[in-house]
């Protein structure tokens, strides 16, 4: 009898939650792996009585491929990086919203409203902001780390002990900065120079890997390695010898954004979710979890100390980062050949 009771109450509860979900609706998120705390999703689900489901991806390009292969129309929001917002907009994958739909639109830090990849923020809101540079194990190398030469023409101590992100965009952008070549340059001599430089640099590299970037530095498999700054802060917490560099030639600056997808099945809830993420407290919850800074005004005061004081998140004054640019088809074709040459 007890069992029967239990079974029937469970059944009723399931039906209730199912109909409840029907009434208040669903929200379907397509997100990076390990990039939003579960607590925050639960909080949203509870506050707005919405059933939240989330799938994850591990690169901008993988997300684009999945959406192109027929997933568009099954998700409400996604979280592309800066250049990918522009690509998705050009592909017609984004819906637009009016500022008046988001009561918290005013919370966006003004410098992140008129951004190149989405002028005036018509389809996206800022999520997290970070940089891609490199870290060096100061026990292995004590010299100057203020130049990209550490990666591309490394000192003897670091040769054969360098991990590089397995990401064409970031490697080619940093190499271009090192050679002082504009990104997406169509100049043949410059592209040849880029190709030659990478061939030369590769001889000094130990491995390519993005998800392993932190682990190889912490464990000492690599003495230097390209890494995202928040990931780097976590690495330093585990191995105090690691130092994040701000190279004088520049570094990659990136910004992930929450976008409203075209044909979103639950557009209203998507808008509610974006508005929810623009609350300073909620934006800070993401930062405290992912360890990147936020594009929302006033989020800073909710940061935990580890985020507030991390040297990785506070670039020295005067250092400049640059967004990765989305190249046109002709340049991208050359970039692909360079990348294949690098890994053949």
């Amino acid at each position, binding site marked *: 009898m007890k069992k029967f009771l239990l079974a029937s109450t469970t059944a009723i509860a399931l039906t209730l939650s199912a109909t409840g979900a029907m009434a208040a609706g669903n929200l379907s998120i397509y997100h990076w792996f390990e990039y939003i705390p579960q607590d925050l999703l639960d909080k949203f689900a509870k506050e707005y009585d919405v059933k939240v489901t989330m799938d994850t991806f591990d690169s901008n390009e993988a997300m684009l491929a999945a959406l192109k292969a027929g997933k568009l129309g099954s998700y409400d929001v996604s979280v592309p990086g800066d250049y990918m917002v522009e690509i998705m907009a050009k592909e017609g994958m984004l819906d637009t919203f009016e500022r008046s739909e988001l009561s918290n639109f005013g919370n966006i830090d003004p410098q992140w409203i008129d951004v190149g990849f989405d002028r005036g923020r018509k389809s996206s809101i800022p999520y997290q902001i970070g940089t891609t540079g490199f870290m060096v194990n100061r026990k292995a190398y004590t010299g100057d780390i203020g130049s990209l030469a550490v990666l591309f023409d490394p000192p003897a101590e670091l040769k054969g002990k360098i991990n590089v992100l397995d990401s*064409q965009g970031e490697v080619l952008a940093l190499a271009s900065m090192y050679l002082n070549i504009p990104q997406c340059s169509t100049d043949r001599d410059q*592209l040849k120079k880029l190709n030659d430089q990478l061939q030369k640099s590769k001889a000094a590299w130990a491995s390519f890997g993005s998800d392993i970037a932190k682990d190889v530095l912490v464990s000492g498999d690599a003495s230097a390695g390209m890494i995202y700054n928040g990931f780097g802060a976590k690495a330093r917490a585990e191995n105090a010898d690691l130092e994040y560099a701000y190279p004088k030639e520049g570094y990659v600056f990136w910004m992930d954004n929450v976008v409203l997808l075209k044909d979103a099945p639950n557009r209203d809830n998507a808008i509610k979710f974006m508005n929810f993420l623009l609350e300073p407290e909620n934006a800070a919850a993401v930062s405290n979890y992912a360890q990147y800074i936020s594009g929302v005004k006033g989020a800073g005061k909710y940061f935990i100390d580890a985020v507030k004081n991390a040297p990785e998140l506070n670039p020295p004054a005067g250092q400049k980062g640059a967004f990765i640019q989305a190249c046109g088809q002709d340049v991208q074709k050359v970039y692909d050949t360079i990348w294949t040459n690098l890994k053949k």
Partner: protein
Amino acid sequence: MAGAITNNSKSNSGIYAGSAHVLMLPSWLIIGFFLLIPVLLMLVYSFLTKEFRGGVIWEFSLDAYDQFFFYRGLFGDEPPVFEWTYVGIFWRSIWQAGAATIFCLIIGFPTAWFIAMRRGANKSVWLFLITIPYWVNLLIRTISMKFLIRDNGPLNEWLLWMGAINEPIHMINTNFAVQLGLFYSYLPFMVLPIYASVERYNFALSEAAADLYASHWETLRLIILPAVKPGIIAGCILVFVPSLGAFLAPDLLGGAKTFMIGSLIEEQFKGNAGNWPFGAAASMILLSMVLAMLTYYARQQSKEVS
């Protein structure tokens, strides 16, 4: 048809006569749905025009195959020369899979022999031991191997402590590490088929050979090996084919410094270029190679039977 063959070969299968086709239906459905349709789709895609950043345009094109075999310079405007890059990537993968197969055979054959020699319950225990590591996910096993062999990992620290070496042996991100990973991943696929063959071997034949003054070497070469050959060949195929497409071991243990067939194809779908037709073409070329190999093996087998 398949049904007819069963009917002719055995008279007592008459009760299945009418239902043979019906009974075959699930297999045909599964093969059709999970194998033929995806492969045909891939074949079609490989002959389409690529769309920038993923997707295809429905126009016939040989570009994907052209890209595989001809190089036209960094900017695509030089006269075409034969493209060694992709052939090189395939060759490297084949070489690596071949080496892994040979290592698995060298260790797997004596292991299988040893297990087959045990008596009764002992046998099951040994077989059980062989399969234990395979209850754990391949990814986790590969990462554990990485922890084990890194410069300051337990293996090096143990060797240092023993005084066998003075400084750590550098193993991670080398071909050796990749070989170790492949060997460890696929060893049971070699051991189990060979064990099954050895198990059926009639040891009276070895005794007869000895009675007729055959040396140990001659017995092995002329009597035992031909008898267990089907098991060895099956084991080699089971190790070689998955090693060929493997990318976990090369990526995690080899440092992903060079493309393998698997990672090259993945890059076409998930990379910046999003060149789906080229990914499909590379997959078709790989598939054709494996099919050619298996067909050759099947022919050899049927020749021996007849």
